């Protein structure tokens, strides 16, 4: 029996008649999942991942229980600043993934499409908007987004703001780094800080922000060290666990727990044996719910995803003495910002560094970031000499991601990797 689906069906029955109750059930479901992860999860999962998984779930579940101390964000938001005001970031990507985890995405996606949202729009956004429209999400204290990488953010957040009247701040990130663009972004961050001071009636503490940025540096050090070891050692994982790393590298970075999680992982991995597995480098979104991929990659004996670009989109050490500027700089120089060539070059460098057996890019439905640049990406990967597989599908909407087709492509790629082929 699929527990998540069964539980999702119970929630589904309430969606129309009592959306508030459905929302409560969703939150309860997240807490139950947190309990399951902590006490009943698969014995193969290493302690570090277990902790990371547990925190990733409970942070969101707790934040949804306490919306006054929660902000809706996207994955690139300056979460360190929100933490300064006691606000937990709940990204719309994470929310959409959780709703899909309960097998409810079809309801919410249909809901936003029937309101007039284009069917070709990214299903993370459709799922999130549908859930907001349906009234299952508690209204947060604020919403903060950026123009980085994804156009739909500006539109989704504006729409949400129009419905709920949530104080919303959008940070405009110029494409190229220069002194002016740094001042432009820092200026906006300071404006955001003023807005948050008003909303939360709390004073901004530059000292706390310095500490958060210093912690962020340390967290990344552990993560990078872990990644280095990961290329040699086994460390059992699932697609979901790899995806959860984003909580620690993005949504909660600057807090204590990501530092703790990566420290645990970095220490624990040394006890695992050297690995003879094939290693995959994953570009952009991970379709954790895709059955065909789970079959091969969850606790994969022969093949594993050991590295991906999303966790490494900005790894430079940040200047903790000037934390606001450092965060502005991080956003402008994120590899997802600006021209694709820069991103493609950065990813090619990562591939050279981590030397995987193969590279996979998943082109998520409606995502111009992945679909738009995939042909160039393929060229760059070709230059590294690594075989690359391009998959088309939908990371959120199961109906839009034909499993059979993905399975065939993936199996063919595995056959090719086995023979040491070049491309797929």
């Amino acid at each position, binding site marked *: 029996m699929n527990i998540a689906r069964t539980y999702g069906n119970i929630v589904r029955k309430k969606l129309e008649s009592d959306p508030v109750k459905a929302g409560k059930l969703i939150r309860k479901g997240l807490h139950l999942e947190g309990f399951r992860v902590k006490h009943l999860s698969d014995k193969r999962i290493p302690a570090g991942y277990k902790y990371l998984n547990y925190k990733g779930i409970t942070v969101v579940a707790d934040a949804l229980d306490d919306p006054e101390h929660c902000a809706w964000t996207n994955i690139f938001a300056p979460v360190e600043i929100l933490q300064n005001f006691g606000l937990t970031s709940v990204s719309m990507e994470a929310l959409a993934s959780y709703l899909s985890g309960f097998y409810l995405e079809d309801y919410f996606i249909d809901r936003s499409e*029937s309101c*007039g949202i*284009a069917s070709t729009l990214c299903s993370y956004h459709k799922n999130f908007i549908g859930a907001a429209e349906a009234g299952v999400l508690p209204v947060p204290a604020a919403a903060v987004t950026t123009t980085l990488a994804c156009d739909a953010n*500006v539109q989704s957040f504006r729409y949400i703001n129009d419905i709920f009247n949530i104080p919303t701040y959008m940070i*405009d990130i110029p494409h190229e780094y220069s002194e002016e663009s740094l001042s432009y972004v820092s200026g906006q961050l300071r404006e955001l800080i003023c807005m948050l001071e008003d909303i939360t009636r709390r004073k901004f503490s530059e000292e706390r922000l310095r500490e958060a940025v210093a912690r962020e540096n340390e967290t990344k050090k552990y993560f990078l060290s872990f990644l280095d070891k990961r290329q040699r050692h086994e460390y059992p994982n699932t697609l979901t666990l790899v995806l959860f790393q984003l909580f620690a590298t993005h949504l909660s970075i600057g807090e204590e727990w990501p530092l703790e999680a990566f420290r645990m992982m970095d220490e624990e991995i040394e006890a695992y044996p050297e690995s003879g597995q094939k290693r995959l480098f994953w570009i952009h979104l991970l379709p954790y719910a895709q059955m065909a991929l789970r079959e091969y990659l969850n606790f994969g004996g022969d093949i594993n995803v050991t590295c991906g670009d999303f966790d490494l989109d900005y790894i430079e050490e940040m200047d903790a003495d000037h934390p606001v500027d450092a965060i502005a700089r991080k956003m402008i120089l994120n590899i997802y910002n600006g021209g694709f060539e820069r991103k493609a070059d950065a990813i090619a460098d990562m591939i050279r560094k981590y030397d995987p057996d193969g590279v996979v890019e998943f082109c998520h439905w*409606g995502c*111009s970031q992945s679909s*738009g640049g995939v042909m160039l990406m393929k060229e760059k990967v070709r230059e590294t000499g690594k075989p690359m597989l391009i998959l088309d599908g939908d990371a959120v909407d199961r109906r839009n991601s034909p499993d059979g087709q993905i399975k065939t492509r993936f199996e063919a790629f595995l056959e090719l990797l086995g023979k040491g082929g070049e491309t797929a």
Partner: protein
Amino acid sequence: MLGYVCKYTPVELLEAMGAEPVRIQPAVTSFNHADALMHPNVCSYAKAVLEVMAEGGYEGIVLTSCCDAIRRLEDVLKEQYPEKFIYMLDVPRKVNDFSIGIYRKRILELADAYSAFSGKVYSREALIEILERERESARINAAGEKPDKLRVGIIGARCPETVKTLVEDNGGKVVFDISCTGTRREEALAPYLGSISRESTDPEGILSSALLSQLPCLRMADARGRSDFIAGFGNEIDGIIYHTVKFCDVYSFEYMQMKKDSQVPILKIETDLTPQCSGQIKTRVEAFMESLAAMRGTTEKKIAGKAAESEMFYVMGIDSGSTSTNAVIMDKDKKIVASAVIRTGAKSADSAVRAAKQVLDESGISENDIAMTVSTGYGREAITAAGKSVTEISCHAKGARYFNKDVHTILDIGGQDSKAIRLDDAGEVADFVMNDKCAAGTGRFLEAMARTLEVDISELGPISFESSKEVSISSMCTVFAESEVISLIAQNTEKADIARGVHRSIAGKSVSLMKRVGLVPGFMMTGGVARNKGVVKEIEEALGAKIYITEDPDIVGAVGAALSALEQVEK
């Protein structure tokens, strides 16, 4: 020629360098180049611009950071045409002194880059002259006319000229076009050029400020000016056409909001900028114009009396659909005399002739006794015998009310498209939507599934009633759904269960479509698929309400066409 794609481009600055900036409005027939260089799921406009660049003739293109798709277009163009001037101008999304300063710097960097490429030199005096001229020409044009035509505003992304032509051909006048580069340059900028003069020391600053201050597009952080602009028209517009491009992320949000708030009827159309999609667009725009005319009371209302008292005459309605061609003969008292339903062959005009002959034979009425023929449906314009053609949207509305006065929401599922139509209390079309260019949820989808299940299409409904187990067909695409059905067959799933799954899948799509016009009770289903009781049952379950279906759901459109013919004669 130097191409540009966005209204935030400093066209005037380029002109002041002696360049010849040309707004790219592509009308392409295929995406052969683009599909090889970009992913198919990328905005059609970006792909169309790539096709235009491949045709040659442009020395280069100035792009703006307006959206992800255009940013990806830059990457591809740079790679493909290293010898051309491919420039990406990063436009701030916020408008304040700081961003205007940044933008001023960026447009001057553009001038430097173009100068290095072309050897042409920027002249400040020339820019002042151009800006002054623009301001003056806006003044002259301000003395506009107030047409007696239907006034339509166009909003959204990159509206092709064909849409405007359709509006004008159907008794309309485009009052404003605020789609991407739709607004006339001088109208867009002139209000912000007041301070320009020979003595201006910073015309670039004035231009940057004017560019960023113009009516915002939706990529801008603050886009409230848009709703104010539209509200400013008050009752001065009859309808709004909201145009979006396939895979454009930006515009459907505004439509969603406007649909909730607007007092003015709105039609949403989505194109991929190819002529191939003009057929569907044509039906939608025409139907929209018909409904606007009806609301304004300019339709040919029937005049009782004169004609009614005269001797008996007959009219014919022909509905030329993709799957069946249906003909109806009606007498002057609106009584259906005869009807015929035949399968549409390769040529819709030939099928119409056969259907007309069959219905004439059946009724025993001679062709000479038919006072008027009105055609409707997909092939309506190929039918030369018809005195007039009316869209199937209006005809289904008329036909539905003919059969049942209480109908408010119609679901018509035909062979290749499905539509939901909402009627107001007077029976006029208040709103309608059609499915996109995809067979999912149409008669073709059912045909494909019946073929895969190896049952006759007419058996699909009855066998689904024997289903005992819930099976879901989740794919939204006909082709993939077919492979899902094949896998289910391979797993020995009962045909009855699969058939029911297929029906549920259509019901889900259909109810979503109906929700988009609003579920006003008084439901009716028309079109051939209404014969399938399995589909009807699933839709009724999803709606939680009964659906009215006539004995002969295929002929509702043709009946509507005959009623239109009657109105014509009585007029």
